[in-house]
């Protein structure tokens, strides 16, 4: 597998591929994770509680009760820092759940299609084609619009089309793996099919799939923010960066921090995930 590292690129690759950049991205990601895990414990925030007397305070202003609004407040007087920290947790939870669901479904169906071939492959591949022909975010909007708002619905909506990429990758890899000598040998000595797939195929598929998972994570986080921005994502009782950005869009020229801060946080998360994903693709990936 290690031989497959040369890929043609359309733009200079130095920034995207150096280990230093990848390390930096990993550190940034670790910070996000830390904030998402520990932050909500340290910084309490209640999305329902507003304080209209302290509304639209700029960064670093002091509230009426003397406390510091480190990153300002929004149009209803809610603390921006709290929203950012709790939004980080929401984004990470959604991103991880969506990727985990997609990975599980995609890996299972993809290896099955690749290994069993025949009608199974035809059925799964056509299903993939159908889903690929439909814009993923549109499908997510339809699904999210049909049901009541909630975390589970968002994960479902984003997973419905998200597993396709994993399945395609897993199927392609399996197609070439199933004719390798060690798989043939296992089959010949009578190892049952499920065991062959789990012990002799999946270990070789998991690397590239993990690399893909990072980029899909970034996509899931962005899509959730998009849905929440449109008011179709999470209910207002859950903080989401997309919602905060939407709340601030009436104040872009007077209170820029409401939309800008979560926007920056989102950008940071997505860009560093992407950089790390690129690096992982080069280390673990194969031509997709």
């Amino acid at each position: 597998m290690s031989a497959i590292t040369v890929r043609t690129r359309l733009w200079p690759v130095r920034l995207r591929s150096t280990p230093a950049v990848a390390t930096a991205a990993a550190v940034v990601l670790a910070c996000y994770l830390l904030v998402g895990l520990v932050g909500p414990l340290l910084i309490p925030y209640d999305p329902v509680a507003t304080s209209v007397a302290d509304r639209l305070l700029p960064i670093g202003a002091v509230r009426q009760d003397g406390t510091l609004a480190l990153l300002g407040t929004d149009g209803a007087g809610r603390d921006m820092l709290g929203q950012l920290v709790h939004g980080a947790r929401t984004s990470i939870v959604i991103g991880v759940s969506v990727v985990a669901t997609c990975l599980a479904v995609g890996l299972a169906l993809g290896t099955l299609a690749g290994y069993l071939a025949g009608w199974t492959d035809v059925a799964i591949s056509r299903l993939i084609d159908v889903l690929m022909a439909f814009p993923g975010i549109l499908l997510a909007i339809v699904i999210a619009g049909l049901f009541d708002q909630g975390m589970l619905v968002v994960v479902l909506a984003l997973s419905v089309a998200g597993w396709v990429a994993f399945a395609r990758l897993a199927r392609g890899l399996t197609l070439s793996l199933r004719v390798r000598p060690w798989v043939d040998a296992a089959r010949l000595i009578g190892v049952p099919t499920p065991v062959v797939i789990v012990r002799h195929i999946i270990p070789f598929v998991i690397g590239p799939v993990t690399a893909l998972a990072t980029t899909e994570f970034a996509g899931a986080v962005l899509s959730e923010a998009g849905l929440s921005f449109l008011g179709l994502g999470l209910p207002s009782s859950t903080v989401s960066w997309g919602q905060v950005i939407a709340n601030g869009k009436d104040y872009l020229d007077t209170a820029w921090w409401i939309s800008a801060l979560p926007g920056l946080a989102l950008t940071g998360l997505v860009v560093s995930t992407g950089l790390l994903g690129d690096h992982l693709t080069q280390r673990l990936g194969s031509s997709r």
Partner: protein
Amino acid sequence: MRPIRLRRAVVLATATLSIAGLVGCSTTTGGSTAGGDVPQELVVAAWTPIENLDPHGASAMDNGTQVAAKAIYSALVRTVGKGQFEGVLAESWQPNEDATEWTFRLRGNVTFSDGKPVTSADVVASFNRVLELKGAMASNYAGHEAKESGADTVVITSKDPDPALLGKLSTFYVTPAAQEKWDKPVGSGPFVVERFTPGQSLVLAPNPGYWGGKPALRRLELRSIGETAARMTALKTGEVDLTWAVPDDQLPGLQANSDLVVEKDQGNGVITMWMNSSAKGLGDPAVRRALWQAVDFPTIVTSLFPETGSVADSVVTPNVLGYAPQTPVKYDQAAAKAALDKAGWDYDQTIRFQFSQPQFQQFTDAVASDLAKIGVKVEPIQKESAVFLQDLLALNWELNIQQLGTAGFDAATNLGRLYTCAAKRMGYCNEDLDKLLAEAGSTSDTAKRQELYAQANKIIWDDAVGMYPMYVRTLYVRNKSVQGFTVPQDLTPDFSKVRIGGDG
């Protein structure tokens, strides 16, 4: 090769000619506009979307429909102030002694935009249509009947005396008896419909046969821009020339722009938050009062609406006949909590708080926040305006917020229309109030009516049929090139006298 060349030459010549023609056309159009240099075109961003052009049906009292109706149709009379009216289609009118019979004489020279004259038959047909459709306006006219008496006289009779009839009629628009196409209706107003896309845009052209004189505007577009930010940007870039109900927060950005003129009306709207008395737990006035008491409205009003809001002390605004100041509801969470405990409030119950317009977003959040402090769960739900209206009438909510104006500056069109048992607007039914409202609606003595409405006001306020937190004044912002525009007092601008000037 010759034929091909010839053909090419012909094509070229045709192209040149048509281009020349186009240029010629545009020069002529440019030259013929009234005022010489500025095109008389006005684009207005309406506050609420115009979903429907039917002035008699379910959405008849919607601001969008009312604004459109004022441009397309004519009413019998219009309000010029508290208790003052001016004839529109009606040239004169006369009530009998006890105000059970009103005789309206129509103007003789008025025609619909299709050329047919406006007759008493059309007025009667329109009136009957309002009653048949049982829409938002119908409860204004319980026990009323319209009859023609000759081609130019209409007599409206009512079972009980109705001295407030003129106020009610200010939102009653006359359409032809044979009106069929409600997406491109015929009317007798200053404008005719050119194109209508529900919820998006209404394009109007002047009605050359308008009895009040053809409007100066050649084209009037009423556009619905739902997003506040988009609406303000459109105003700043000049894409839109006029809008109203501008949020307080947007004012600093607009005042900095020297092309814009900001004006404020006298205010006739009250933020009205009905509590659904037919919903679980909300039938008890003590519960409703406690919920009202638990919200710090003075702080919310002064923080969110420093320019346009003031804390209300009555169900209707002071410039309305029937206004009477009430005892302010004092913010006291401890007392509220105690009252809820005593009444056995179910703290697991979630109050669905419905609203439609984006300016209520933070208001509803703040109310939910204050109620959450005493453990009452409130979920603000923003609904698209058609859904909102449907749910509102179906009582599919526990708490509702909207801005209510009083048409004709007479409590009859607000209290008398909405708070009767028969109206079923908020699940509240009180026979004493019904009697009071019926009596107030049928007394011709103005002082007596004021007194009766004051009593009704007190019952509604003390029984906390809703929360009445704030009086609203409305900000109108227009491009300074828009001239001849008067700020209306009832949120329905009249565009018939508007023209576009130069920069002045």
